[in-house]
């Protein structure tokens, strides 16, 4: 059972061309472009880790949000409720499959950057980065789940994703220093998981492990919070269908 569902979820995720573009092709193009324009070593390091983190957030958040929304819209969860398959098991396998592909994509983006800009990385740093990317993908995937529960249509998925992603990216030190920005911007940035994720990714390459603890702890806190929220806000079918049903009942 696990094998069939996992394999199917891998197939459906890998055939999602739009998310693949935003999490693989777009970050690679952006990284190569920026990396050749800003050619200082520290800038290229920032670019590689920043873009790898963006790839994680795009795959994790928007990818799952759209996938869950479409499945709900098509009545998949409604039908699933009528089978002996527990929803929690199905969602866990789906998240595992997406995390599996997401981490491979992240590693590809990261490795291309490391080789393209000749960044020195130890094998232990590579392994630790791999583990951190698993935590990052799981965290942002669970946030994406909450978005799919809150959004009433596809436009709202984009709106909610941007509302969460853009402050995370722009209030972090992914690509630039926050030394001269107002205190409140730094404060908000530090409250969000992306800043800690980027710093932990960077810290692993620089072999300064003091950012790793805050990276993991922030990702895990947000993961747990988002999982709780996604359970509370979960919907078996979409709002529009419910409203249509309600209208037809009231009309009768």
């Amino acid at each position, binding site marked *: 059972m696990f094998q069939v569902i996992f394999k199917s979820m891998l*197939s459906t995720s890998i055939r*999602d061309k739009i998310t693949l573009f935003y999490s693989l092709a777009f970050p690679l193009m952006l990284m190569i472009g920026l990396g050749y324009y800003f050619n200082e070593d520290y800038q290229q390091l920032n670019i590689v880790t920043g873009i790898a983190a963006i790839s994680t957030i795009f795959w994790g958040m928007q990818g799952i949000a759209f996938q869950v929304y479409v499945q709900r819209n098509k009545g998949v969860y409604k*039908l699933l409720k009528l089978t002996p398959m527990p929803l929690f098991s199905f969602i866990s396998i789906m998240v595992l499959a997406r995390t599996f592909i997401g981490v491979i994509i992240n590693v590809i983006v990261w490795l291309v950057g490391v080789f393209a800009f000749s960044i020195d990385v130890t094998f232990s740093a590579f392994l630790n980065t791999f583990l951190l990317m698993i935590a990052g993908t799981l965290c942002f995937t669970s946030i994406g789940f909450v978005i799919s529960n809150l959004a009433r249509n596809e436009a709202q998925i984009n709106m909610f994703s941007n509302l969460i992603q853009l402050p995370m990216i722009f209030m972090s030190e992914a690509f630039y220093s926050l030394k001269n920005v107002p205190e409140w911007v730094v404060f908000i940035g530090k409250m969000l998981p992306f800043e800690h994720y980027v710093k932990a990714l960077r810290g692993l390459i620089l072999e300064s492990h003091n950012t790793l603890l805050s990276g993991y702890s922030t990702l895990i806190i947000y993961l747990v919070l988002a999982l709780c929220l996604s359970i509370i806000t979960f919907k078996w079918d979409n709002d529009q269908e419910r409203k249509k049903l309600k209208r037809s*009942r009231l009309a009768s």
Partner: protein
Amino acid sequence: MLIQAKNLRKSYNKRQIIKGINFEIHSNEILAVIGPNGAGKSTTLEMVIGLRKADVGEINYWVNNYKEKIGIQLQSFPFFVGLNSYENLMLFASFYKRKLTEKEVNEVLKMCGLYHLRKTDASKLSGGQQKRLAIAIALIHNPELIFLDEPTAALDPRARQEIHELIKHLHQQGKTVVFTSHDMAEVEKLATRIIMIDQGKIIAQGEPEKLCKTHNVLNLEELYLQLTKKGGN
């Protein structure tokens, strides 16, 4: 007897939609649930299949693990985007804890006239083909009881005919089929028994021919118009 529903009641926003419904589903019958829009057909069936809970009343099933023995085709097309017909069937079979061989999946595809489309992305199938795939999903775990919610709605005559043949074939195999429809000719052609619901109550149930005789009408359509008119619609 497979299912016995006793005194089912359901309200939405303090308005009673189902007003004490009693009925049974017998083994190896083709039962049609008919009635005007908003009469309470879907709500009744949704309570029976376990999608909604009745406020009052009880439903007794012939087995404890009834979810494994019931196949359901909803009006929506619950397919996984990016998966073809074959992959969708394999996936849904796994939800029923069944690991099917390629031959078994192909047999269901052939029965539903979809074998030649087994490698086609489910979302790229036509409306009629998607409807047949939804029925194939309902049949993939070899259920004893099959619920089909408006299986021929919005289909062309040929596609309707194919689904009629499929329902007859399932009945010949010993399956019990429960379906909803607004097409009285279709109901007359297929159903061995009908339940007519109006304003949240059962207004008639029995074999179509006997009901027509009792009410002195020529066909089911006349009976429908007569009884639902009496019901105030």
